[in-house]
């Protein structure tokens, strides 16, 4: 009874008589009232997945990266990228950012400029000559041979090295990079960026052998390797199957020449056949060497598989696109070439460049015909006849893009490692190696789960920090502290940079969850 009296502690207040001012006031702490006993739902800190990460072929922890950038923690953000992607600046330049298409913020105002923030971070890492600070497993004694130093081969080498393998990369050309080096024009991807990011991979101890003549058979015979990865890029042009096709120059070859600093001897009107990124790359490169490109595309402009931004840029630069046209014959005359189109019109040009697509070399395709000991993964194929061989890159990747190619190499690393170590293959190296992200819920936060009261409409910002602040940080905690501030029972504790809930007092009201702007909490029913 004494306790109750102290707790209820009703008293009058000075200067007015007790009879005139009698209220309930107590100097005894309310701690004796363990409101936790009222609880039938328990809040938990439950980080969730974000749609951008889900859509990123490399499963980069985007919401957390943006959160770190918004706080100026660039180094931590770079580490977080490098855990999942060896090419932040390359991707920041050329990736077509499916993340932004998935961004929850797009239904609010505009998606976050994830792509430019990634480029910003990648460039800082290059400019500062940033030393990798991610866990790297020491050599485990196993050797891996990698054929092809394109994005998938280099990706495979990087991630295999992280997982403890010794990697030799064999490249037929004189410099590594594959399509990144020889296929993408320098105005889109500066040389320095690629060189520096490849150097970072080499700094881990990955050896790249250029001008190599090694083949699958020669590697097998050498007996030096425990597994082989083949980065099966699309390097062979597809045939149009029309008369006079030989008169057309291959688009990749043209781009190679330019990237190799050769004189192309091309000028005047140039017909570019195709509607993909190569066709645009070729056309924009032609503009840069003073030629006049005209794109002939068999479908409508809006059907072009090239990235929209690239098509727009080509337009701005003066590239003419003729839709719903395709050549049916190419002939030579005294002035140059005459192209007969499907509408029976003819077009005179000095040159024709075909960029209708490429495919893998036949001997790689043959490997896929193997029926035995063949396991198919989302981006790779494992063939295991005495020696495990993983095929990656464009040949087996559903989407042919730089990020997808790197992701294929990453998956190959996990496929081979799990072959030796029996672990579950995922998209994220952090999850694969049992990092913090393993504890996150697979649930993808939707915009309905974001508390939009905490966000203001804002167009994209020029400053990366300001732009990163626009990110909802879907599903992750950014230390906003709302859960602690709004808890009516003061039952959220913050100690050693970690929040915890004092269940003696948490009554399960769920205010913390409602006030969490980014769905980083959840309610669990009491058992």
């Amino acid at each position: 009874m004494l306790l109750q009296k102290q707790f209820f502690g009703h008293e009058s207040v000075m200067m007015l008589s007790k009879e005139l001012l009698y209220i309930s006031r107590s100097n005894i702490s309310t701690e004796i009232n363990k409101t936790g006993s009222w609880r039938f739902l328990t809040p938990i800190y439950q980080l969730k997945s974000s749609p951008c990460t889900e859509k990123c072929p490399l499963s980069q922890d985007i919401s957390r990266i943006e959160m770190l950038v918004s706080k100026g923690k660039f180094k931590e953000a770079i580490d977080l990228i490098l855990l999942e992607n060896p090419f932040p600046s390359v991707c920041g330049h050329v990736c077509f950012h499916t993340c932004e298409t998935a961004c929850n913020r797009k239904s609010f105002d505009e998606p976050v400029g994830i792509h430019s923030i990634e480029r910003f971070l990648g460039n800082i890492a290059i400019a500062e000559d940033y030393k990798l600070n991610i866990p790297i497993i020491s050599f485990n004694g196993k050797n891996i041979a990698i054929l092809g130093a394109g994005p998938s081969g280099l990706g495979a080498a990087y991630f295999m090295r992280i997982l403890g393998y010794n990697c030799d990369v064999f490249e037929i050309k004189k410099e590594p990079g594959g399509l990144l080096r020889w296929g993408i024009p320098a105005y889109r991807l500066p040389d320095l960026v690629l060189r520096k990011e490849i150097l970072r991979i080499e700094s881990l101890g990955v050896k790249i052998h250029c001008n190599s003549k090694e083949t699958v058979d020669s590697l097998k015979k050498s007996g030096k390797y425990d597994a082989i990865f083949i980065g099966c890029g699309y390097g062979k042009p597809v045939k149009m199957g029309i008369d006079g096709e030989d008169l057309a120059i291959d688009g990749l070859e043209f781009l190679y020449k330019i990237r190799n600093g050769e004189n192309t001897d091309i000028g005047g009107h140039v017909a570019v056949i195709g509607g993909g990124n190569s066709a645009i790359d070729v056309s924009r490169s032609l503009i840069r060497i003073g030629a006049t490109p005209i794109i002939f595309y068999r479908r409508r402009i809006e059907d072009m598989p090239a990235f929209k931004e690239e098509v727009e840029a080509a337009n701005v630069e003066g590239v003419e696109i003729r839709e719903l046209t395709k050549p049916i014959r190419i002939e030579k005359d005294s002035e140059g070439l005459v192209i007969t189109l499907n509408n029976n019109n003819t077009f005179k040009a000095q040159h024709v460049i075909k960029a209708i697509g490429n495919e893998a070399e036949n001997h790689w395709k043959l490997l896929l015909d193997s029926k035995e000991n063949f396991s198919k993964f989302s981006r790779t194929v494992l063939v295991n006849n005495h020696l495990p061989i993983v095929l990656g890159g464009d040949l087996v990747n559903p989407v042919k893009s730089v990020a997808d190619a790197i992701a294929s190499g990453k998956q190959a690393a996990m496929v081979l490692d799990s072959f030796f170590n029996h672990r579950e293959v995922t998209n994220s190296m952090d999850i694969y190696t049992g990092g913090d992200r393993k504890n996150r819920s697979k649930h993808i936060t939707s915009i309905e789960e974001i508390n939009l009261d905490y966000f203001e409409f804002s167009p994209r910002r020029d400053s990366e920090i300001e732009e990163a602040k626009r990110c909802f940080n879907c599903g992750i905690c950014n230390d906003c502290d709302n859960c602690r501030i709004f808890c009516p029972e003061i039952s959220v504790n913050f100690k050693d940079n970690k929040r915890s809930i004092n269940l003696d007092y948490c009554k399960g009201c769920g205010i913390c969850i409602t006030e969490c702007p980014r769905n980083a909490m959840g309610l669990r029913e009491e058992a």
Partner: protein
Amino acid sequence: MRQVLEGSHAVSEAVRLAKVQVVSAYPITPQTHIMEAIAEFCANGKMNAKFICVESEHSAMASVIAASAAGVRTFTATSSHGLALMHELLHWASGARLPIVMAEVNRALAPGWNIWMDQTDSLSQRDTGWIQLYCEDSQEVLDTTLCAFKLAEAINLPVMVVLDAFFLSHTYEPVDVPEQNEVDKFLPPFLPRINIDMSNPCSLYQMAPPNFYMEMRYSIFRAMEETISKFLEVEEDFYKVFGRKYGILDSFQCDDAEIIIIAAGTTASTCRQVVLDLRETGEKVGLIKIKMFRPFPKKLISDALSNAKKIAVIDRNCSFGVGGIFAQEIKSALYKNKNMPTVFGYITGLGGRDVTPKMIEEIYFKTKEEHYPEKESIWFGINYELFRN
């Protein structure tokens, strides 16, 4: 300094002069001008107050309750539906014994939507434990608002200053706006009895079980009783500085009056003229203006009416099922009178309908000529034509 102000701005000026520290309100016609001016004062530095924007009147009252419990002088204003929405927290404010001051602009409740003058909104809140003071003109609005802070803080109960929609809130009149140093003489800085002191933590308003609760209600009841004398003290203090006072009741020409009209708000002002006009023709008529409705000054009323033969109460409100609310309260106050006057209860001027001098005159003569009221509540000025098919 004498200025031409609308009633709303008379409130705003008083709030500024009272150096209120926290203001929170949600706009509603006809209260809006009050808060607009205060918001400007806060924005341009004329007031050093925190203006809390909220999403409803319920939250506005909650905000000032919290601020007041933290120990600062607070103010809010509302009207009609806004007041109705506050209802729960009106009980809380008085139960918590917080000296909050609120301006209440008398406006009708919907449906039919009606933004005009009607007393039903404030009178519906008569049991919430708020002191209610009704004003007749803009000067009285300003003076009463200043007094309201002193009274609330003296007695630890919230005060509602009530003014008629448009007739008062939107009508311009000359008003003497006092100087700050004079106001400071009358109204010192707020010294809270109840406040949150971080150096001496306490919990306020926790659970009160049956063995404590009733005493708390008794305490409010007793404080209300003390309010009558405390109000007179406050008015006396005000009078010393500013030379103006209004009284709990204002008896006008009542000494030899046989028939006394009772009204509140701007209607009382109209009645004064009618009384003077009728006096000139030899009628023995007087007026009592009721300023304080809560606590209801029963003793003062019964004394003031002890010699009257008939009373005509003008109610611009209705408690459905009973009648005019002022009339009820007055009848109850007269219960112990030896010479019980006959009370004529008139319900008129609802929803902003004018109560003209001619109507008041008619009310007077009807009261004079009829021996006994035909009905307990006489609806005066009903247009029965509207009911015809």
